[in-house]
């Protein structure tokens, strides 16, 4: 580790914090255009965060310290996730701190805290949302792990940086297993980020909500942190997907030129990914909540298929 590596790491985190709300804003814009609506400004999520940070926090009478503590934990988890996922370069000093399995754990930790916080104040909707979130989570996590095992087997390492380095910077090989893993990962990302067809980020119907139901009682800076964390999660998942399946353009070292090239490539990839997300969200209706297990079961099946393809067909190569 050198000072460049450290600076590169800090830059990646700062970029994540800045780009994440922008990605959310971009997806919202695309959704609006696809629905023939005039779109909100691209910077709308920043205005929202600014407004929320200025507002007073209103706490429920029964709120325990956990309720106040949880937004910080969730936000911290998402920042950590963004730090260990290679966005610009694979030379990440923080990368040894956590491998992909730990990354899944970090997402799990955030989920547990936000669900506990939702149940903490004892409203019906919080409990409802927390329960549903756990239903989605416990089905999504194994599928995500399977996806990661497939890529880990290719690179013989569970470190995200090593996986990306293997896939991006060695001889170009087509791995059929990654196609299955990619489909599974897309499914999981939709469920984990509370997007249509599993959840609807734009709904105002409290009885159908999952993620929104959990955060109904939050306000002020707590809500801002949670909203920001949700943006970061979408960003982290997008970057993880890009790093695993479209890793080209990520710099190998922390040379200034490499980073300068990596930034526009990343932005372009995120823009395309965000637009695709909006398209999928627009043409799909939300599934019945008891279809969500089927949806995630399919994801798991694809992930297992990917692993089997890797084990049975690709190990000779």
């Amino acid at each position, binding site marked *: 580790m050198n000072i460049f590596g450290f600076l590169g790491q800090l830059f990646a985190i700062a970029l994540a914090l800045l780009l994440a709300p922008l990605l959310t804003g971009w997806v919202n814009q695309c959704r609006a255009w696809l629905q023939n609506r005039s779109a909100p400004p691209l910077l709308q999520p920043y205005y929202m965060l600014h407004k929320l940070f200025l507002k007073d926090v209103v706490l429920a009478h029964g709120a325990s310290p956990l309720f106040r503590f949880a937004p910080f934990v969730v936000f911290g988890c998402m920042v950590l996730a963004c730090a260990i996922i290679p966005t610009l370069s694979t030379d990440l000093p923080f990368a040894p701190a956590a491998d992909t399995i730990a990354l899944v754990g970090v997402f799990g930790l955030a989920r547990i805290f936000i669900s506990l916080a939702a149940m903490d104040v004892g409203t019906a909707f919080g409990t409802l949302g927390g329960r549903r979130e756990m239903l989605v989570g416990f089905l999504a996590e194994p599928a995500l792990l399977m996806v990661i095992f497939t890529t880990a087997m290719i690179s013989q390492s569970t470190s995200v940086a090593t996986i990306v380095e293997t896939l991006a910077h060695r001889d170009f090989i087509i791995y059929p297993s990654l196609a299955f893993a990619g489909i599974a990962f897309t499914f999981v990302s939709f469920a984990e980020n509370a997007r249509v067809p599993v959840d609807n980020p734009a709904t105002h119907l*409290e009885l159908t909500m999952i993620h929104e139901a959990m955060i109904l009682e939050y306000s002020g800076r707590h809500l801002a942190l949670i909203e920001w964390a949700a943006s970061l999660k979408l960003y982290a998942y997008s970057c993880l997907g890009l790093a695993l399946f479209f890793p080209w353009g990520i710099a190998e070292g922390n040379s200034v030129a490499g980073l300068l090239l990596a930034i526009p490539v990343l932005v372009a990839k995120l823009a395309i990914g965000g637009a695709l997300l909006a398209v999928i969200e627009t*043409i799909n209706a939300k599934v019945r909540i008891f279809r969500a297990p089927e949806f995630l079961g399919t994801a798991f099946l694809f992930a297992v298929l990917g692993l089997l393809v890797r084990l049975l067909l690709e190990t000779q190569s």
Partner: protein
Amino acid sequence: MRFFGEPIEFEKQAGIGGPVWLGRAESGEALQAFAVAAHRADGRLAALWGSDERRRSGCFRVHCVFGFMAGHIRVSLDLPAEHPVYPDLSGIFPAASRMQRATRDLVGIATAGGDQRPWLRHGAWPADWYPLRHDAAQLANAGAGFPNAPSDYDFVPVGGEGAHEIPVGPIHAGIIEPGHFRFSVIGERVLRLEQRLGYQHKGVEKLFVGRNLAEGARLAGRVSGDSTCAYAWAYASAVEAACGASPPPRALGLRALMLERERVANHLGDLGALGNDAALAFGFSQFMRLKEDWLRLNAKLFGQRFMMDRIVPGGTTLDLEAPALRAIVEQCEAVGREVKALGKIYDEHAGLQDRFLTTGAIDADLARELSLTGVAARATGLILDARAHRQGYTPPPPWAMLGVRPATDERGDVAARAAVRFAEIVESLRLLRELAVGLPDSEVCVEAPPQPGGDGLGVIEGWRGEVLVGVALDGEGRLARVHPHDPSWQAWPALEHAVMRDIVPDFPLINKSFNLSYSGADL
């Protein structure tokens, strides 16, 4: 004239509105016996309200309107001023329960037995004060009012392993009307839903008292804003029956034109909202665009987006010239094409149909038992439409000449209610074209001089279902009592049944597929 061999003499209401017979029961037993006979004859309870007649005849009066294939029958029963009690009809017609409770809260005439919980009274006035009595001091209007006491309400508890309650509302996460829903659930499964409504109570019936006929027309058009034409026409029809006035043919054509435009506007909005509740925002924005264009043409031709105050006793307040009628025909053609395309998209969208099919199903037997009318009833296969011919019933003008084809579907679920709306849009567009092309030439308004002591009932097939307005005039020709009745009274309990066996997150979709009025039923 007598019905079902019951000893009640009926007289047919004069005028050109739908067929209505009015009669008086001699005793509570006679009323109850008539209700039983009506139920046996496949009738339904269309409305129930009370009035304070102590000034004129020294008694209270309860009015029950029963709906049949051939028309409507209103039975009135005089109750002694000292102890006004009448027999409970909710055992015969479950729909009676909430109407009886509302009548007790407002007029202070109670049933012997049945549910005695308050319905519209939420603690805004004391239990022994009845706003619709003549001698109720106008405290509430004087600004002094009563202290607003919080009122407890005994929801029916549901027990058992793992059963718990989810209270929802009256304040919701979205901007909608207030209503409280108490779900008893196991996990996501709904065991029971109990509604508590009345948060929109604003004393409309009290406001009618003492007004002249024109003021009454304005108020009637504001009972439920989405049904302003239906209410205004039902009110006008009741006043015309009470005063012996006949609106000219062109006025009837114009009224039908407005009513159908109101129906199309609401159906367009509902279909969009149904898509939105299943997170298909594309459908929402498309239908909302169509609805907005529709309302803008309303504003241009009728001077008001919802066409408020255009229907008055005696006729209409405006006439349409040939270019306006041409614009309507052109718009019908354009909208018809777009609705057809959108209907295909909705039908073929697997995700949407998966949410719609089998969700929130009720069957025709239940619909009949609950006295349901309108879209929700037709979606179970009941052919109930006051505009359409059926056995033994000829619709009043101008519908008789148009040959309205009622839209039905037998499935009774969300998909059926959506399909009925699509079919009704298509039929309404056809009616609008016929009405616009064949509008008869005549004046559009005649004088409807108030008839002291007159009394009438108007029935109109609004977009949601059957809208009734009962009108009684006092000795000076002013309004003594007006009761507007929204089809939502009967449909709210049907919603409680529809959501049983379904899961909590499907409730918003089921609720939207009924799209009931809070304001119209809370009065």
